[in-house]
């Protein structure tokens, strides 16, 4: 495997291309369990008929863990949106339809979003009173079995040359209430400062999925608390404001 052509860069990850393979290489101190879990999650959702690049192998290169998948020739939806701002509405509609399509699938082996959120609230570093409020709120939420991508944002969709929209980056997939996944996507846009897109997204998700806005807003304090676990200093103040359990309705 040749790691010559870099196609994406993160502080502790690099994605390379070698012919028809994409090779996602993780830093030495990346948890082995996280890497293997990401590959396992992807393998689990691959069996749905969703367009997902297949995992070819999990291996080590130069002492680093790597996940090798099929390479998809195309552009991410994020790139298309920045190159064609006049088409943002159209892309957003497509984006929402893909998320709803994912949520129509069932993969019984996946972890539940309930347990994941429960754990993250515990780990959030918030005070006991706020955690209690958030845990209580979480328990009151309807429990579904929809596939929730967990990091659904336009950089995780690649529109292939065949115009098929491939979905990548399944590290955080769970099953549960689709409104939680929508709340997370909304939060991701807001954290990027894309407030206008965030609102458009929310409206589209509600309209096309026949979902009440309130049922998504109810998840916002919970998904904000879960994001606190990542300990990004520049997000902290913003997230703390959102975890203060107030009724947005």
């Amino acid at each position, binding site marked *: 495997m040749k790691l010559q052509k870099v196609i*994406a860069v993160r*502080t*502790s990850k690099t994605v390379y291309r070698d012919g028809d393979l994409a090779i996602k290489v993780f830093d030495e101190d990346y948890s082995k369990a996280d890497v293997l879990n990401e590959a396992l999650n992807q393998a689990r959702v691959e069996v749905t008929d969703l367009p997902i690049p297949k995992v070819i192998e999990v291996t080590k290169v130069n002492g680093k863990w790597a996940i090798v998948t099929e390479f998809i020739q195309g552009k991410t939806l994020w790139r298309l949106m920045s190159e064609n701002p006049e088409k943002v509405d159209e892309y957003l509609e497509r984006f929402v339809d893909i998320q709803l399509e994912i949520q129509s699938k069932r993969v019984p082996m996946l972890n539940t979003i309930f347990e994941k959120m429960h754990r993250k609230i515990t780990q959030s570093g918030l005070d006991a009173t706020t955690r209690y409020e958030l845990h209580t709120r979480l328990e009151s939420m309807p429990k579904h079995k929809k596939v929730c991508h967990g990091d659904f944002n336009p950089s995780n969709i690649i529109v292939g040359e065949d115009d098929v929209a491939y979905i990548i980056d399944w590290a955080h997939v769970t099953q549960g209430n689709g409104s939680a996944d929508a709340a997370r996507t909304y939060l991701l846009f807001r954290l990027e400062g894309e407030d206008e897109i965030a609102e458009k997204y929310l409206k589209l998700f509600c309209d096309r999925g026949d979902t009440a806005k309130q049922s998504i807003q109810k998840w916002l304090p919970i998904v904000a608390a879960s994001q606190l676990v990542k300990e990004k200093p520049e997000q902290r103040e913003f997230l703390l404001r959102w975890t203060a359990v107030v009724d947005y309705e």
Partner: protein
Amino acid sequence: MKITVCIGSSCHLKGSREVVEELQQLIAENDLKDKIDLCGTFCMGNCVNGVNVTIGEEIFSLKPETTKNFFDTQVLKRI
């Protein structure tokens, strides 16, 4: 702090891969993973000066062999 490296084709030919790998290593060695957000971008439209790297709005022209110096003089002082 956000550092962006151009990984467009021209910068690729001039060694953006080496620049990326070296920056990742320096960030890790200096324990700055929480403070620095490293990312890649497509052609910045400034190919003649590649490899192009930005810190916020400021643009720098790097080579693999000047990366360490860039890190020591430009990155560390902004932390």
